[in-house]
């Protein structure tokens, strides 16, 4: 509209869609462009609208009226802001009164409190000072920040510490510390003065103490839009005097983040105003004073949901302070004493109590609700297990009669009963037939995905390999789920009823069988023709760990089978394990199995390790299989375990069997030969060297060779 000439027509388009033209002369149309309703004003040269006369104008009397009515509605806001509805006279006077009232205690405090600088000013009087100080609150350039400037004298601001994106903080968020008393005045004005008429509309049931902000929240909330609107219209110094109010409004908004809090804010000023009017001296609401006398002891909020250690701490502190408080109260029981103590405490911390007890409880309640669970073992597995372990350890300690038991306290969270929810599909009233609504409980198929299985011919070799690996991975995952279930049965057994237990046992057995089948690969025939499936699993790190975990659950026969398969394919597995080095995790379960094996099995095992066929043929010059085994840590350790077991068996009563077994002797000679042959450097370092190997070897080799073996394998303790 800037370019509009006085003689041009101006076309106004109103929000309700109507347009009208104002004749040249710069006069406004009859309706008048009101801020709320005008959408666009366009300057149009007269010629364009030559043909349009008032008769052609779409607006007629009726339209005008209806428009006018709508206009009135829209204009209500306008009215409130600029017009008669706005109550805008109070605040300046209110502030002045405030300032006077708080002048006395403020100055009193000033004298006592040396920390308050001389630039502490009262709101009403030194607005320029205030403006200056408040403008410093928002520092545009971080270089102006005294804190940063002190620090970063040689560094340019770009190198702000840590490469952190701290610029957002270093900039406008850096606030100078607002002087305590000043902020107090901003935050704790007397509610009475702000909106006297408003308060009558909100009767309050509570006589509780109020936070300083609560009282000004309700009025502030309504005031701030109008405040801001007015600010935009004002220029210059009045702006600075508005700032305290803005701050106040802002603070008020800050304190009402969630909708739930409205409940508290909806019930504002209590009966406190009348008494507080009399007691003007304490700048904070007089409800403090009110509650001081009747209840020096606190009401005890519910602490059952707290962590036990926490609760104890709180009670301790409470006791402490109660004693302190009593002594204080005893000395100064009169009103003056109260006031001074209150002032002192307020000086110490005027901002405490910003959150009401109810607010704290409310948030606390939300947190506790989130912790409710029907099955804590499921929802919070690690925490529960951790505590169980701790308890076991402490129980063990106790049994050993160790020192004072360390107290481990656990947070008890509320447990809710599980509610069964049957899904009921949504039904619409008045509809013909049943309409299907797709929801979380009732998902609808959106995409028609068709699974196409590829034929074998099309695949390339690589794809086959990849698929096979994927199959193995899937098998491992399935077996792992079974394993986790099986491991859990013990706990379930304890928790279950008597009648359910057999069923649980059955399930467990079945799952173990399934696991074994998965490991070995289900074959229809009796014979398990190939170790292939098993070897595939063992090539994957997760598979190895899984086998180690499964072994304790398998029967002796099954476990021996696994051992055999491992020994048979050991060189291959060793090669594959070069990167992972996870085979060692199998040692422990293997050794456990070994110590239950009969001699025949042990022999076969050794056979597998040495890779000799059933019938002993002429010994080859070098046994590559065995050599590979010896050069690997796991292999060597396993070999030692087997040998050690054999020795044990020989020493025991059942050992005669072994002695008579030709195979065993042959195997031993083979083994010793290989051990002698292999250079010491190539020999791996075993996890542990069993002590009975020396005696074992002494049966099969002469003294000279025995000595060689001794030194080579470091069989005698103390040579290390």
């Amino acid at each position, binding site marked *: 509209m800037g370019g509009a000439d006085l003689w041009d027509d101006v076309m106004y388009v109103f929000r309700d869609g109507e347009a009208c033209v104002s004749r040249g002369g710069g006069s406004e149309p009859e309706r008048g462009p009101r801020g709320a309703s005008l959408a666009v004003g366009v300057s149009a040269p007269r010629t364009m609208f030559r043909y349009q006369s008032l008769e052609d104008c779409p607006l007629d009397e009726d339209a005008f009226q209806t428009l006018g009515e709508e206009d009135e509605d829209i204009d209500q806001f306008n009215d409130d802001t600029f017009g008669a509805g706005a109550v805008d006279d109070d605040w300046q006077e209110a502030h002045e009164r405030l300032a006077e009232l708080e002048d006395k205690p403020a100055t009193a405090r000033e004298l006592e409190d040396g920390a308050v600088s001389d630039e502490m000013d009262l709101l009403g009087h030194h607005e320029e000072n205030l403006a200056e100080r408040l403008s410093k609150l928002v520092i545009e350039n971080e270089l102006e920040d005294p*804190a*940063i400037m002190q*620090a*970063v*004298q040689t*560094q340019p601001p770009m*190198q702000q*510490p*840590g*490469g*952190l*994106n*701290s610029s957002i903080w270093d900039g406008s*968020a*850096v606030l100078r*510390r*607002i002087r305590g008393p000043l902020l107090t005045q901003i935050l704790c004005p007397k509610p009475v003065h702000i909106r006297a008429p408003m308060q009558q509309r909100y009767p309050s049931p509570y006589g509780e103490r109020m936070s300083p902000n609560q009282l000004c929240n309700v009025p502030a909330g309504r005031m701030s839009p109008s405040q801001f609107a007015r600010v935009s219209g004002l220029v210059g110094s009045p702006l600075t005097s508005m700032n305290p109010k803005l701050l106040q409004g802002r603070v008020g908004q*800050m*304190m009402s*983040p*969630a909708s739930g809090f409205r409940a508290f804010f909806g019930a504002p000023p209590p009966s406190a105003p009348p008494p507080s009017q009399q007691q003007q001296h304490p700048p904070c609401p007089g409800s*403090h004073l009110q509650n*001081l006398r009747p*209840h020096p*002891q*606190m009401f*005890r*909020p519910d*602490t059952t949901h*707290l*962590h036990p250690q*926490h609760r104890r701490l*709180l009670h301790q*502190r*409470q006791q402490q*302070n109660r004693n*302190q*408080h009593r002594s*204080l109260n005893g000395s100064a029981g009169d009103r003056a004493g109260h006031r001074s103590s*209150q002032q*002192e*405490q307020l000086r*110490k*911390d005027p*901002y*405490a*109590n*910003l*959150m009401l007890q109810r607010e*704290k409880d409310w*948030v*606390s309640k939300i*947190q506790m609700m989130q*912790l409710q*669970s029907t099955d*804590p073992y499921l*929802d*919070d597995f690690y*925490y529960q297990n951790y505590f169980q372990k701790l308890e076991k350890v402490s129980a063990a300690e106790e049994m050993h009669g160790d020192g004072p038991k360390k107290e481990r306290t656990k*947070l008890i969270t509320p447990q809710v009963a599980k509610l069964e929810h049957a899904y009921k599909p949504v039904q619409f009233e008045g509809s013909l037939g049943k309409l299907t609504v797709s929801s979380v409980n009732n998902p609808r198929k959106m995409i028609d995905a068709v699974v196409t299985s590829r034929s074998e011919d099309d695949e390339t070799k690589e794809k086959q390999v990849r698929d096979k690996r994927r199959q193995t991975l899937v098998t491992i995952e399935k077996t792992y789920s079974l394993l986790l279930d099986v491991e859990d049965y013990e706990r379930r057994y304890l928790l279950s009823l008597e009648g359910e237990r057999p069923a649980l046992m059955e399930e467990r057995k079945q799952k173990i069988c399934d696991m074994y089948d998965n490991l070995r690969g289900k074959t229809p025939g009796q014979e398990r023709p190939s170790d292939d499936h098993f070897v595939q699993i063992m090539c994957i790190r997760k598979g190895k760990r899984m086998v180690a975990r499964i072994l304790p659950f398998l029967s002796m026969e099954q476990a021996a089978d696994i051992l055999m398969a491992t020994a048979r394919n050991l060189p291959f597995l060793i090669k594959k394990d070069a990167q992972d080095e996870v085979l060692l995790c199998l040692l422990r379960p293997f050794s456990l199995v070994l110590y239950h094996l009969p001699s025949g099995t042990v022999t076969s095992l050794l056979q597998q390790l040495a890779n000799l066929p059933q019938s002993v043929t002429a010994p080859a010059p070098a046994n590559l299989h065995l050599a590979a085994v010896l050069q690997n840590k796991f292999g060597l350790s396993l070999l030692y375990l087997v040998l050690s077991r054999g020795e044990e068996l020989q020493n025991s009563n059942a050992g005669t069997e072994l002695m008579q077994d030709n195979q065993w002797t042959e195997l031993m000679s083979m083994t010793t030969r290989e051990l002698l042959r292999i250079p010491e450097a190539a020999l791996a370092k075993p996890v542990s060297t069993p002590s009975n190997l020396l005696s074992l070897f002494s049966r099969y080799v002469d003294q000279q060779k025995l000595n060689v073996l001794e030194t080579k394998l470091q069989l005698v303790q103390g040579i290390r």
Partner: protein
Amino acid sequence: MLSFEFGLCINCNQCLIFSVTTNADLTSLPEKHLVLLRDGRTLIGYLRSIDQFANLVLHQTVERIHVGKKYGDIPRGIFVVRGENVVLLGEIDLEKESDTPLQQVSIEEILEEQRVEQQAKQESEKLKVQALKERGLSIPRADTLDEY
């Protein structure tokens, strides 16, 4: 007057549990709290308000920078922290506060130390990335992962 105390107990599902003291003593001092933010900053201040998202209002906040055995404080004023950025929050025992083996230094010094430390870290990081690149590997940095 009620002063409130918060304890952050990350057990179940990483929930925040806070409690209210029964301390109605009017002469007690407010408790200082220490907040650790996700970007690694440490703030110390008087906790004035909290909500269910762990949005915090800290009063007379001080940002404490730790480098090695030294630390330095930068006064910051009032902080409003969005809950998602809070890692942990704990109360400071005012009696034990001064009982620390750490040595307080001036702001310039600590910022300098921090800069040096950051530089050293970046150098080593660069070398690592270079070495990995030569082997054909690339490990994404943790902080960039965090955004997605």
